[in-house]
């Protein structure tokens, strides 16, 4: 028995989580140990260390809790099946014993989608890690649900192909997780979201049945959209056939600065109306523009040198100072947000790729359009700088948490008529709670996504958590009232469950009926998407 479990990666910062914070496994799950072990050929664990590791995803609320020594609800056990038959057998045991089953990819979700709020068994699908050969004629590849994003992309690249899916979590997210939460990558404006890449799916339903959706053409309704985005509440994904693309022959970057957010948004709208298809479209609001800097690509990093006094200062004293300053400053977010009036410039980054001459031609057309709208041409540097650091932002969050703050992001989408209003209303609603930044990306002919970043603090942990919850209530309500949706690509989990159910209106009964059909015993990830356990 582990008497004191440390959180991997966080324990050294915030100390240990006492064993008493972890409830013992539920008797019903302990009683099913033999059947579960048989189902997965012995690959299971009831160890506290494993239960603690699987107790959370990357929902920032968990980080706040852990800082306080609280633990999100852990599963009672974890199983690691490697075949669909094993998954089906686990489902059979869970149905018989009425155990909750939580399908688990890589744990990179940010909405609490894998929290074991009713205990039960976490079904880790990472052993579904096969990557088939690229079917060049069909431009497709068969992939196991447990394959990690970066692994898949590297493998495809080595064969001259790309999936075109680059979420900022690519190093710590899996194919199954992408499908479960309807993920989007940074190049989605060209390659689409994950649902656009799925040609067919393999999954085990909550009934224990294996399901393989057909590829077009077929007659009748398409089951795949009813399962994609279900976040483990209807099925566990085991694999998918995905659309792939040849590696781009050419790539062109371009940065512009507009006089206002409105002017930048108009440029994006007209770019898509013109039929241009940039792979990357990112418009930063004035504060975010000020923060992204002047677009210098990351330079060569000097090799590490021997420890110095200056280095020690940088490692200990400065972070401590930063913690104090950050906490004090972010405790008064409204005042900081008011400073945004000082800034007005809004920066746009475009990247075109594919056929080299085509990419250049589309860039020329976009440049002409942006100049007509009065934008300053910043050349290619901002785009290259973004590319060099494009995954960094996700890994800065723990540093902010370390500084005694909270940090989170909210991604929503709206039609073009409402984007500006959604931006302004969410900004105003969130301002009393946190420092607010926003960028606009994942653009379409009919609208785009708004990606808000929030950083806040408070006098103590209790106030910080209150502000965190207050922020989300206010921001989501403002988004929906102004005509935005609940989520563009992070999913729902626990965080947005109520908002999603409200947005569905009477349609929530159809979702509940689907749940009853595919998961009649309610064992699959109970309590998520606002579905009753």
């Amino acid at each position, binding site marked *: 028995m582990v008497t004191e479990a440390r959180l991997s990666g966080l324990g050294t910062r915030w100390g240990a989580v006492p064993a008493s914070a972890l409830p013992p496994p539920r008797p019903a799950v302990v009683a099913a140990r033999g059947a579960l072990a048989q189902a997965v050929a012995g690959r299971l664990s009831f160890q506290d260390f494993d239960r603690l590791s699987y107790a959370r995803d990357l929902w920032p609320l968990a980080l706040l809790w852990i800082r306080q020594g609280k633990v999100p609800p852990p599963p009672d056990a974890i199983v690691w099946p490697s075949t669909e038959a094993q998954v089906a057998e686990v489902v059979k045991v869970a149905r018989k014993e009425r155990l909750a089953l939580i399908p688990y990819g890589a744990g990179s979700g940010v909405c609490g989608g894998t929290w074991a709020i009713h205990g039960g068994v976490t079904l880790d699908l990472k052993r579904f890690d096969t990557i088939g050969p690229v079917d060049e004629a*069909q*431009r497709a590849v068969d992939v196991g649900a447990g394959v990690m994003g970066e692994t898949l992309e590297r493998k495809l690249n080595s064969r001259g192909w790309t999936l075109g899916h680059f979420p900022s979590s690519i190093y710590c997210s899996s194919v199954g997780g992408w499908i479960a939460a*309807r993920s989007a990558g940074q190049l989605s404006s060209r*390659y*689409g*979201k994950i649902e*656009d890449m799925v*040609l067919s799916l393999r999954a085990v339903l909550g009934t224990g049945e294996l399901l393989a959706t*057909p*590829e*077009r*053409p*077929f*007659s*009748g*309704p*398409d*089951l795949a*959209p*009813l*399962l*994609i*985005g*279900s976040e483990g509440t*209807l099925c566990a994904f085991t694999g998918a056939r995905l659309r792939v*693309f040849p590696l781009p022959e050419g790539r062109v970057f371009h940065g512009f600065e507009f006089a206002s957010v409105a002017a930048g948004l108009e440029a994006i709208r007209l770019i898509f*109306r013109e*039929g241009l*298809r940039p792979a990357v479209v990112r418009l930063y609001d004035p504060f975010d523009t000020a923060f992204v800097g002047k677009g210098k690509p990351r330079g060569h990093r000097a090799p590490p040198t021997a420890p110095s006094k200056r280095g020690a200062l940088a490692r200990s004293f400065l972070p401590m100072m930063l913690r104090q300053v950050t906490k004090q400053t972010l405790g008064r977010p409204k005042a900081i947000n008011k400073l945004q009036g000082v800034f007005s410039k809004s920066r746009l980054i475009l990247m075109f790729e*594919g*056929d080299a*001459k*085509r990419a250049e*031609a*589309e860039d020329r*057309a976009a440049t002409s359009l942006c100049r007509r709208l009065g934008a300053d041409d910043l050349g290619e540097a901002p785009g290259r700088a973004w590319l060099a650091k494009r995954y960094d932002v996700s890994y800065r969050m723990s540093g902010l948490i370390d500084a005694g703050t909270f940090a989170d992001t909210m991604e929503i*989408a*709206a*039609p*073009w008529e409402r984007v500006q209003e959604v931006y302004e209303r969410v900004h105003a609603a969130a301002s009393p709670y946190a420092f607010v930044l926003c960028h606009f990306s*994942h653009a*379409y*002919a009919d*609208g785009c*996504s708004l990606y808000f970043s929030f950083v806040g603090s408070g006098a103590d942990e209790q106030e910080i958590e209150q502000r965190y919850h207050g922020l989300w209530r206010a921001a989501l309500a403002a988004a929906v009232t102004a005509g*935005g949706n*609940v989520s*563009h*690509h992070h*999913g*729902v989990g626990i965080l947005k469950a109520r908002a*999603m159910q409200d947005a569905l*209106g*009477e*349609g929530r*009964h*159809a*979702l509940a*009926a689907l749940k009853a*059909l595919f998961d009649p015993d309610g064992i699959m990830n109970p309590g998520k998407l606002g579905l009753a356990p």
Partner: protein
Amino acid sequence: MKGLLEALGPVARLGTDGGVVLEPSDERGLTDALHVLADQGARLHRDATLSRAKLTDVGHVQTKSMTVDVGAGVVLQHLEDRLRTFGLSVGPLSPAAMHLTLAEYLEGPYAGLRAIPGGRLEPLCTKLFAVLPDGRRLETSDAPRSAAGPDLSALVLGGHGRLGLVTRARVRCYPLPEADVRATFSLPSPAAFVTALTRAIADGLWPWRVHVDPRSGRVVAEVRWAGTAHGVERDRELLARCVDAVGGRPSGDTEREGPVSVEHESTWDAVRKGLEAGHALQLFRLSLGTVVARGEVGGMPLDEAGPWTSLAGRLLALDPKAVLGGFP
């Protein structure tokens, strides 16, 4: 029959064949009618048919997002005519599709799908208003994309009206093209044709129609596309490069009438095989996955509802009283 007609009230009438026809003028009327059918133990398709001829409103055109709310009974060609006055178009659909009502296009074998630049398929509509078998309303989000749970519009799209009945939808439109061009190429083989065209589509070519004809061991393809004045020239250059890369060359052949037959949804593999068998084809709604094809080609006929897979059939449990007719 008479009892059902009376119970349905003014929302129903007798059809020319003597059967009961539901003809609601709004969503509420349809909801009430479904409740009556359920109470009477009656079913659509068996005891009554549904007409959406009165659901023909076309709403205000949203010029920024290029969307418009359209009643389910509006014929797509009529919508196209109406949109032209706003400088918009429904975009490139197949000829047979343009004769369908919005409801027929969304619920029927076309499943409401169209190809978009880049070769993906996406629904014609961004938002659906539908009535479910229990009379409840389904109204999906009008945001361009969502990650808020499963996409419930899949209950309606391609569902043959057995899982939900669309009453209205927000249709995505495109700018009316400034230019409409065509170019003819000679390619060394059907496989080369497929390679060249799919590559061009992946890189942004958005063909409105392709007429392809196998002749003397080669394939002659006439590609038609449209867009802005500059855009069509970019497309012309891209297409020329893709054709050149597989050993093709421009051809001086003039336009010919393509084969006219039932439209099929076909894979590119089926297209290649059709060409290898010597059949001339017309292709529409060209995506990287499938196309709508005319001519002798394998695939799924789009003129009538085909059988469902057994898994899709499981969804009929969502209509336990089979008010919407049960298994097609």
